[in-house]
């Protein structure tokens, strides 16, 4: 009887070896990201590494806040823009805006797509204003803005 118990214990312990690989808290949370080349960008991530990987932007603008030192910065690349914000001395990705149809989201939507194409890829869990669609994820909101029935702008905004 006790042998069975010990045996069971050993079995349990050995099971732990592969269970522990991803831990008991499996990350089942929905996150949206944007892929460009080799770089995957999650809104809310620290900006330094990503900006270094993306190389020299086509254009750069910055804007100070009302009273504080930190700057909001926008880096323009071909096909998309990245806006950052400053917190605790570090820059973080605040917004990714897709600006032309040379790039698309990992799910395959680009500027010019139709509303039904977006809903087909992203599902019907959206909120909408007029034609525009908004999807919520754990790390950001993803917005599709339409003009004349076609996507005219795609925006990832980090949840701060």
């Amino acid at each position, binding site marked *: 009887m006790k042998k069975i118990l010990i045996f069971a214990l050993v079995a349990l312990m050995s*099971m*732990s070896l592969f*269970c*522990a*690989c991803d*831990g*008991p808290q499996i990350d089942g949370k929905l996150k949206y990201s944007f892929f460009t080349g080799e770089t995957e960008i999650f809104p809310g991530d620290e900006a330094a590494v990503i900006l270094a990987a993306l190389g020299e932007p086509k254009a750069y603008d910055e804007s100070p806040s009302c009273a504080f030192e930190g700057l909001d910065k926008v880096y323009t690349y071909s096909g998309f823009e990245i806006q950052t914000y400053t*917190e*605790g001395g570090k820059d973080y990705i605040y917004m990714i805006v897709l600006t032309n149809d040379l790039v698309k989201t990992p799910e395959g939507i680009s500027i010019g797509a139709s509303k039904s194409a977006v809903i087909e890829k992203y599902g019907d869990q959206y909120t909408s204003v007029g034609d525009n669609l908004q999807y919520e994820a754990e790390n950001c909101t993803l917005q599709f803005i339409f003009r004349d029935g076609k996507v005219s702008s795609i925006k990832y905004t980090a949840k701060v």
Partner: protein
Amino acid sequence: MSFASISFIIFLGATLLLYYLVPKRAQWWVLLAASYIFYFAAGSWYLPFIIFTTLSSYAVARLMANNSSRESAYIAENRENMDKDARKAYKAGQKKKRFHILLVGIVLNFGILAVLKYTGFALHNVNALIGVFGGVKLGIPSLILPLGISFYTFQTMGYLIDVYRGKTEAEKNVFRLALFVAFFPQLVQGPISRHSDLASQLYAPHRAEWGNIVPGMIRICWGFFKKLVVADTVMIVIKEIVSDTGKYGGAYVLFLIIAYSVEIYADFTGGIDVTIGIGEAMGIKIAENFNRPFASTSTKEYWNRWHITMGSWFTDYVFYPLSITKSMQRLSKWSRAHLGNAVGKRVPVYTATIITWFLTGLWHGASWNFIVWGLLNCLVILISQECQPLYNKLNKRFPRLTKSTFWTLYLRAQTFMIMGTIRILDVYRNVPVTFKMLGSIFYDGRGWQSFLSGGMLSLGLDISAFIVVAVGILLMLAVSEISSRGDRPLKNRLADKPLAAFGCMAILIFAILIFGSYGIGFDASQFIYTQF
């Protein structure tokens, strides 16, 4: 409503005031009302669970008590026409009945705990198995886990077993039992009290006495000081180190071991200080849960000094019953016959120890981290048990050395480091990561280099914060040392001199308000902290 919040302080003040203002007979009603308000504020969804535990335990204990009194009455009535054997057989029969009643109570209540706390964990493991063998993975429901359910369930089950064993009276008044189950100071984090110690104190009338209220308040302040000034400050460093396992290896892990030991000591003993202090201010003596744990010279001793009420719960209600069950004794006999006396003697003890520690680990949390943590503790205890003859020899060979203060300090440090090392299973994500990080102490030269070149100051605390923590640690050491010497606790000695007592409280409150890690400024996600 966590202890360290303004609303709790106000709630506590109001409760105390009311407690001493109402007629003495009604005092325990105030406690019951306060406890339910406290629990309701924590989450209205929790109430049905604690009420179920209360009602089911009430019924089970009453049934057992009724059975007992029927038994005595029957025996008294039939004393003449029953011989000894008949009486014995009758008694055994009744006891078996009571045991079945007890079993129903225990299965019901631990069943709830198991389902709420461990379903997710169990399903994850099943899914992992399915993942290995292929198949459809199961959905994992998200269940609510009532606050303090592990603590109140254990305390209440202890009560049932004590009633069964005849160690305490079954409660006749269901509201009184409700108070015992839900007594708010110890609801969230223990201690796990025994019914025979605590219950009568809860219902007894208490006069407002200087000698209770003032030492109680000092202890509450001291608990908050430990928690807010030391524990929560150190927590910032711990979170940072754990957040980036790639960056913080080597010396950082060693530092983490020490930091986490300090954090959990200050946090847990601080919380218990608040609990016991509240009890004391009400004239209720709650069981001590710690006895200078870091002064332990061995792991076994450590577990007699750390989280005492939990340890003794497992010893009395799991370890002993388990190790003397018939099957365990049979196992012992069998192994004696087949494996020799030395092994046979150990089999029941070791089996029971391993199971007990497995359950202790599981009790701490539904994850493999805690189970491995429990089993490692068990391993250390069993190894040192086996090494006992070696120690004895050492004592004989070098009596001067082993009696010296140096040796004691060495053993304390060794115990501290062993326990600290095992304990970091609490903080890392999973078991492999923990072992990888422990390994990195020995090979991660980059981590050592970064740490030694001032990396400690890049963990989120500046030098002044470290100084505050250091002062806090010294204070804790001093208080613990002074308390262990006198005949009475330090706070009671302080209470003799009103000026010293109030002065001490004022200093603690001032220190907490200024140096405590609370509020927005300490939230790293707030940019204002760096901007002002």
